[in-house]
């Protein structure tokens, strides 16, 4: 038989995209606002999340899953906040995929949970193409990483919905140039909001928490509007 051509025109990551879509729908139904936190190793993801969870626990229910190649150290650090926390061990995998998130939250009841933080594997390249069903992708850049980090890793930064410049308590010690960094971030992701934060001193934490709460409320409102619109169209038909 002669070989023949089969047209597919399909997305290579179709399976992950579909799973992420299902997760996103479930998260919306449960009313949980989901963040995918990405950064290079050592940018301060876990320290920021530990402080964020502790702050949110007064008044909100928050949970976290954390991805690492090895060790459960980060989960232990985050669990100290009192939140539900689960570690995903990826072995040699450099990023999280939707399937891993689904597996990690499978035995949790997230109905009524306000925030779910997904701490991705420390990597500034690989997580970019994998949708985890998140509402917001937050990228951390520590002042210790230098001003040109955004220019060096444009593919991941270009997918960020929010950039946090972290470890600002060390800014003076490393002679960090805030203006140059902000300019570089806007060059690779024009229009992205940027916040400065120090999990150690608490500087900027209020703005970050206010941003989270606002985005969560906006999502709730959208969800309520969509649902009442769906109910209306049902009662009309």
């Amino acid at each position, binding site marked *: 038989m002669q*070989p023949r*051509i*089969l047209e597919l*025109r399909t997305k290579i990551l179709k399976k992950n995209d579909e799973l992420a879509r299902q997760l996103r729908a479930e998260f919306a139904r449960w009313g949980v606002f989901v963040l995918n936190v990405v950064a290079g190793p050592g940018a301060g993801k876990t320290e920021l999340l530990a402080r964020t969870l502790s702050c949110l626990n007064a008044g909100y229910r928050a949970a976290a899953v954390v991805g690492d190649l090895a060790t459960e150290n980060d989960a232990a650090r985050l669990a100290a906040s009192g939140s539900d926390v689960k570690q995903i061990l990826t072995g040699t995998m450099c990023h999280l995929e939707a399937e891993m998130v689904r597996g990690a939250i499978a035995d949790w009841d997230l109905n009524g949970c306000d925030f779910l933080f997904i701490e991705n594997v420390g990597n500034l*390249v690989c997580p970019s*193409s994998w949708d985890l069903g998140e509402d917001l992708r937050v990228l951390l850049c520590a002042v210790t990483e230098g001003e040109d980090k955004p220019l060096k890793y444009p593919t991941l930064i270009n997918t960020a919905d929010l950039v946090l410049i972290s470890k600002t308590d060390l800014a003076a010690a490393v002679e960090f140039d805030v203006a140059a960094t902000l300019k570089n971030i806007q060059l690779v992701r024009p229009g992205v909001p940027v916040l400065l934060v120090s999990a150690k001193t608490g500087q900027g934490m209020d703005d970050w928490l206010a941003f989270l709460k606002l985005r969560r409320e906006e999502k709730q409102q959208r969800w309520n509007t969509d649902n009442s619109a769906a109910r209306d169209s049902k009662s009309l038909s």
Partner: protein
Amino acid sequence: MHELSVAQCVVDEACKAAAKEGAARVTKLWLRIGALAGIVEEALRFCFDVAAEGTACQGAALEIERVDLSVMCENCRQPRTLAERFLFVCPECGSPTPEILAGQELELVSLEITADAAADS
């Protein structure tokens, strides 16, 4: 090395589609990869050979079409192609260009399939 995950997905999708058509083997695959997709072509080719081993895709050729990063310049009202440095500013007028038109593709475009089980050996 996320290219291994991508290669695994390529092989899975291709094998699934080929089986549905009753084909025994995939002899060639055409992919479209955007410049902003973060894929190193050499790494993907290497990983593809590894992922394809023992499957219907084993030994298949990989044709990769690179798609340039293009954006819309609102100021010039013109689409613009950006160079590999990925600075999202219009090369003509210098305005920020957040709107991406192409360059994020990770697509399996088509396959060459055959009912013959073995290669021409």
